[in-house]
């Protein structure tokens, strides 16, 4: 085990982490604004992946267009889920929304199986994206770098949006106190919808990345990344966007290093390790790394 090998694992961890972070940000935004743990969020990843497959491989659309359409599709799915499932139960106890999100998740998975079959499909990006580069003993594909770079750009974009724009201010105000936000003239329905749209667009694009990274997609693929991104959001401090980013990277690195540095016999336990990490961090920092201590947080 040499330094090059370790460097390679770190790069792999960062790539995985940036995908977790993409999904975790949406999780955290949605939780932050309406205290909803949205288990259907991972399935938006699946929808993003299948959109990419359809546009890219079946229709042969150019890559930037695909990315744009996948972002839009993610946003639309988010809006649809919010309007259809969560808006009607606004004001209901937290657990109601949580159960509803499980229902939405199961529905999306089964719709996927119904229309797309449960058969996993190969997800092959064109050769120029698959080309392998070697830098200082670390090898990566163009698509891997693409994932990292676009994730970083989107993260910065989101942080700026939330902290510097009028919509971002409305989102933060609504997250803190819905009634007072209404008294300020903020249209909370529109603000909550925008939050779902943005968070789900990021999940959609994460689906594109996921497919590009692992090369195979199926209608149930959203469950594990969804769950792990939830873990990432909780590790970072749910409700906090920088926390979700940090949590995503911590989890991605921890997972890859666990598999890469321990004898191969342990690698089957990678998911168990992820949840062990969660328990360990929450024992030390009950609100996550960057979380604030707010009384009604789950």
């Amino acid at each position, binding site marked *: 085990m040499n330094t090059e090998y370790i460097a390679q694992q770190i790069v792999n961890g960062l790539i995985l982490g940036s995908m977790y972070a993409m999904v975790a940000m949406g999780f955290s935004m949605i939780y932050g604004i309406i205290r909803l743990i949205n288990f259907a969020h991972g399935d938006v990843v699946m929808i993003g992946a299948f959109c990419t497959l359809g546009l890219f491989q079946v229709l042969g659309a150019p890559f930037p267009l695909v990315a744009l359409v996948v972002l839009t599709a993610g946003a639309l799915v988010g809006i649809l889920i919010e309007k259809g499932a969560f808006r009607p139960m606004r004001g209901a106890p937290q657990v109601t929304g949580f159960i509803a999100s499980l229902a939405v998740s199961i529905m999306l998975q089964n719709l996927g199986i119904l229309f797309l079959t449960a058969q996993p499909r190969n997800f092959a990006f064109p050769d120029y994206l698959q080309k392998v580069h070697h830098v200082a003993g670390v090898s990566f594909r163009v698509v891997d770098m693409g994932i990292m770079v676009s994730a970083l750009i989107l993260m910065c974009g989101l942080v700026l949006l939330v902290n510097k724009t009028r919509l971002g201010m409305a989102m933060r105000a609504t997250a803190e106190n819905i009634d007072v936000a*209404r008294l300020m003239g*903020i249209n909370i329905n529109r603000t909550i919808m925008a939050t779902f749209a943005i968070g789900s667009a990021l999940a959609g694009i994460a689906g594109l990345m996921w497919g590009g990274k692992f090369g195979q997609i199926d209608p149930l693929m959203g469950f594990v990344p969804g769950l792990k991104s939830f873990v990432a959001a909780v590790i970072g401090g749910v409700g906090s966007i920088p926390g979700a980013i940090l949590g995503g990277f911590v989890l991605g690195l921890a997972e890859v290093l666990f598999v890469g540095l321990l004898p191969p016999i342990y690698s089957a336990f990678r998911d168990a390790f992820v949840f062990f990490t969660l328990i360990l961090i929450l024992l030390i920092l009950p609100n996550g790394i960057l979380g604030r201590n707010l009384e009604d947080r789950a």
Partner: protein
Amino acid sequence: MLEIRDIHVYRGQTYVLQGVSLEVGRGEIVALIGANGAGKTSMLRTISGLLRAKSGQIMYQPDANGEKIDISRMSAERIVNLGLCHCPEGRGIFSQLSVRENLLVGAYLNKDKQALADDYKNVCEIFPILGERSDQAGGSLSGGEQEMLAVGRALMSRPRLLILDEPSLGLGPIIVDNLFAILRQINTQGVTILLVEQNAVMALEYADRAYVLENGRVTLSGPSRELAEDENVRRAYLGGL
């Protein structure tokens, strides 16, 4: 300016307002006093659209010569847009937003950058402490400063009718005096004020007229000076002085 006609409001199963009527004239300061649980906060929440009345009308006339609008079925965010601003119970400061953002969010519907900058400057003149602390988180301010911020934030929306829910809550007597003096100053600049107060002494001293709310009904009303002399009011709300 504001005319409430026989409104009935339920909060869950509780019948909180049982046919309340009241009026606020243009340019007045009107106080609503009463014990805990009398329905004062529900009254204000109904006016600003956070609660829906089961029946009754709330007629609001933003302009002296303009039309009267029934706002009892209107959403809270549209009501603010008519210049009716409600400063909620417990101040409702956004503790994680900076002081500046708290003020800007008060003017959320105003998209005119120049007007926004002018209003911001004005508010910082009335409350210099807010200008000094503009980058601090709202939650880091003291109670008195938070109340200033709440009033400042309300002013940012250019209210014609300002509704305040217990502005004196938890504040020391000097700060309360100061605050009421500022409210009077705001009032003389043309802002009508409706306020709910536990501190009946203070409310009756500054208000033109007052209503006494008991168990969801108006039991007494009239000019503040008369109410302050009233035997029952003195016994119940002014500590029997």
